Structure formats: C-alpha cells, structure tokens
C-alpha cells in the first residue's frame, strides 16, 4: 500500500503499541507522528495537520473521548478522519465514539491486513479538504509568468507567453532589456485589443509604455536600432 505524502498521527499511552504500529506502517511511505496522551495528541494534531488519526480510548488523565470532543469543537463533524483502536469492546463505547464522528472502530488486537484496509478506506473517503476562501479572504497575489520579448518600438513591446492577458490591464515587465532601458518603474499595460493567438497555448501580448518622453524614446531607439 502506497501512502506516500500522507501523514498519520497515532495516539496511544502504550509505547509498545506505538512501536508495533510504526513497524506495520514502515513500508507504506506514510509519515508517522506519535503521542502518548490525549493532550499531547491534540498538540501534535495542531503542529502536523495529519491526514488520519489513529486513537486509543482508554488513556489518562484525558480519555480518547475527551480528545475527540476537543478535536470536534463546535463543528458538526471531525475535521480529519479518526480510526479508534481500543481494547474496549463495549457497545456503549462504540456507539459514543461513532456519535462523535469517527470513521471506524477497531478492537485490539487487530490483524495487520484489516488495519491497513481500514486505513486505506478512511484516507480514500476523506481527502484532506481544501479551503474555499470567503470573498473577504480571497486575495490578489502577484504571479510571474515566463515570457519572451520578441519585438519592440518606442511605444512598447510584443511579448510571447502562455498567458493571454485581458485588454487594458496594468502589468509589469521584468527583463534585462527593461533594466537596460531603465524602465523598471515605468507604468506599462496591455492595449485595448485582444492578444494574438500563436501556436497552441501561446499568445502574443502587446505591452504599451504609458507616456513616453523623448528621452525614453531615444533610449529605446538606440537600443533596438540593430534589430531587424
């Protein structure tokens, strides 16, 4: 079973059991983190953001139930899938654990194939969820797209790239040429027309210099005079 890139947190107050679990999961590629108590388990959860938690119930001073309640908080479900692995096979405990939102309940001692099957199932049904940012948290970030300046005039540049920039958009152009021309801070934007479609997935964007003084125009002329 390949669990590369997945992180599993195991919480049990018995160090021998932690050792056994680590050996069972050693070949799966998963990253394992461990905790010997419920409170340490919660701290690990916050630090490691695991994909799956395997948790014992009968721990002291805080039980596995205490951990589950803390993890769930005010939400109506657990934020991450939890497999309970416990020696307690009473109906009350099983019902209580499921009512707190666990994915599965395994009774100790558990056979390795069964444990691996349950782990795989829990991970498959519960991908680490994404965050849909609410409108107030959505943010504009600056990205840099690789491009090639293929032509220039005193009014601007023709730039090929895999992006088709919307008309009249304020952009920035970074290049050795721009540095040479001392235009790093000069405002540039795309023209009012659509970018030209080139071969599949490539576009030619016309990037215009806004306001060109005679000094800038002459700098550009000198620089591009040997181009074709």
């Amino acid at each position, binding site marked *: 079973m390949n669990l590369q890139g997945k992180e599993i947190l195991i919480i049990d107050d018995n160090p021998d059991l932690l050792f056994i679990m680590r050996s069972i999961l050693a070949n799966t590629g998963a990253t394992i983190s461990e905790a010997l108590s419920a409170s340490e388990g919660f701290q690990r959860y916050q630090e490691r953001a695991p994909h799956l938690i395997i948790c014992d119930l009968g721990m002291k001073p805080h039980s596995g139930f205490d951990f589950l309640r803390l993890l769930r908080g005010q939400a109506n479900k657990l934020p991450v899938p939890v497999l309970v692995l416990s020696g307690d096979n009473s109906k009350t405990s099983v019902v209580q654990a499921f009512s707190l939102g666990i994915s599965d309940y395994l009774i100790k001692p558990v056979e390795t194939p069964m444990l691996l099957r349950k782990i795989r199932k829990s991970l498959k049904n519960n991908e680490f969820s994404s965050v849909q940012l609410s409108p107030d948290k959505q943010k504009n970030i600056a990205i*840099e797209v690789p491009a090639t300046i293929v032509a220039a005039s005193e009014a601007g540049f023709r*730039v090929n790239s*895999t992006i088709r920039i919307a008309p009249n958009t304020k952009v920035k152009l970074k290049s*050795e040429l721009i540095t040479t021309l001392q235009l790093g801070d000069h405002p540039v934007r795309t023209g009012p027309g659509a970018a030209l479609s080139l071969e599949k997935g490539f576009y030619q964007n016309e990037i215009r210099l806004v306001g060109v003084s005679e000094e800038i125009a002459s700098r550009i002329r000198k620089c591009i005079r040997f181009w*074709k």
Partner: protein
Amino acid sequence: MNSEKPLVYILDDDPDFLAIFQLMLAKLGFETKTFMKEPEFIEGIKKQKPGLCFIDINLHGFASGYPLVQSLHKKYGKELTLFVVSAQSGSVAISHAVELGATDYILKPVDSTILASKLQKFFITEGTREESLSFLEHPQGIEARLILDLKVVEVDELGIGFESDHLLSKGSVFYLKEDSFEFLKGAGDQLMSVSSNEAAPGNVFRGYAEFGSASEELLLKVRTWIQNNR
C-alpha cells in the same frame, strides 16, 4: 470600418497648444472639438460621447485634471477612453493618472509618431497607419517575466484555485511569490503548473495550479495553514 472620421475632444487652457494639437490630429484623420473650460467639456461629453478625450492635467496652473479624470472614469468607466496630456514626465505622475482611470498618457511636446502609434490601437486611420511606429524584431527573443495579479479563491494541499481576467494555458507554468502566503515564507518562490483554466460566468477564467515540486516541509506548512483557515 466606418468611413466617418473618429471624433476626439481636447481639454486644455492653452490656446496655442490647442491649435497645434488640433492640426496634428486632423492630419492623422481625426475630427476634433476643443474646450478650454471644464464645465463646457463635461457638458460636451453629455451631449455627444467622443471616441476619445485628451485632458490637460495642469488646467489653469493647478493639477485639476486628476480629479476630473477620476470623476469621468467613475461615471463612464470603459465607455470613455481618457488620455492625459502633460509636460510632467515622471513615472509617479503617469502612474497616478493611470490609477485614477486614464488609459494613456501623452507627453508635451507631443511627438506625432508616438501619438499615432497610441491612437492606432483605438482607431486605424490612413494618418495613423502612415505615421505610426513599426516594431523591430529581436533575432532570438529576450527572456522576460510578465508580472500580474491573480485572485486566489481556494487553497488545498496540492495547489491553488484561482480566478482571473486572463487565460493561462493548461500545462503552462508561473511563479508564486514567496510573500503571497504565510506558508511560503522561507520556501522561496514556487513554480506552479496550471492544470486547468476555463471560462466561467462573469467574464472570468477559473483555474487550478499545482505546486510544481513541493517539499515535505512545505506540504506540512500548507496543511497546517488549511487547518487553521478552515
């Protein structure tokens, strides 16, 4: 193309400049109407919207062109193309005009070749075609980066979901700057690979980009960030 000459308005308090500029534009194939005072100019726009307006920034010795550009842009948006005309060549003044809604900035004294090149983007006339600048091609092309904004609407363990006015080809790459998110701090700029980008309602493109080569440490930071922001 419409055979009528495109109409442009010019607002400037200098009669000499108006006369020269009007001649220049007429030569390029434009019909012009000139104004020396703001109220008449605003009234003129109300009566008939021109194809483009030139506004002097330093009207009557004050920088009163700026608020005018701002209010016209607020009122008419993309329906009215505003060119600022000024003798100030600093990039701060130019940026300010653009921020307020100017589409372009023409420097005094006006160079007719540059003016034609700029106008040709909006109206192709015999005059602009003859006068405008031709592009010179670089034999190999010069490496560059285009820097622009994307709106991030979703973060998951493998990448980001985004919205943008621009179309990024599927399979293309871009760099996500280190300072965009807390979880990238110390990890350097991330190479992202676009796995989808499609047109969505509202004239935007919705896409998804995966982290190119995320280390285990970065993945852990992303997961804890998601956990805290859920």
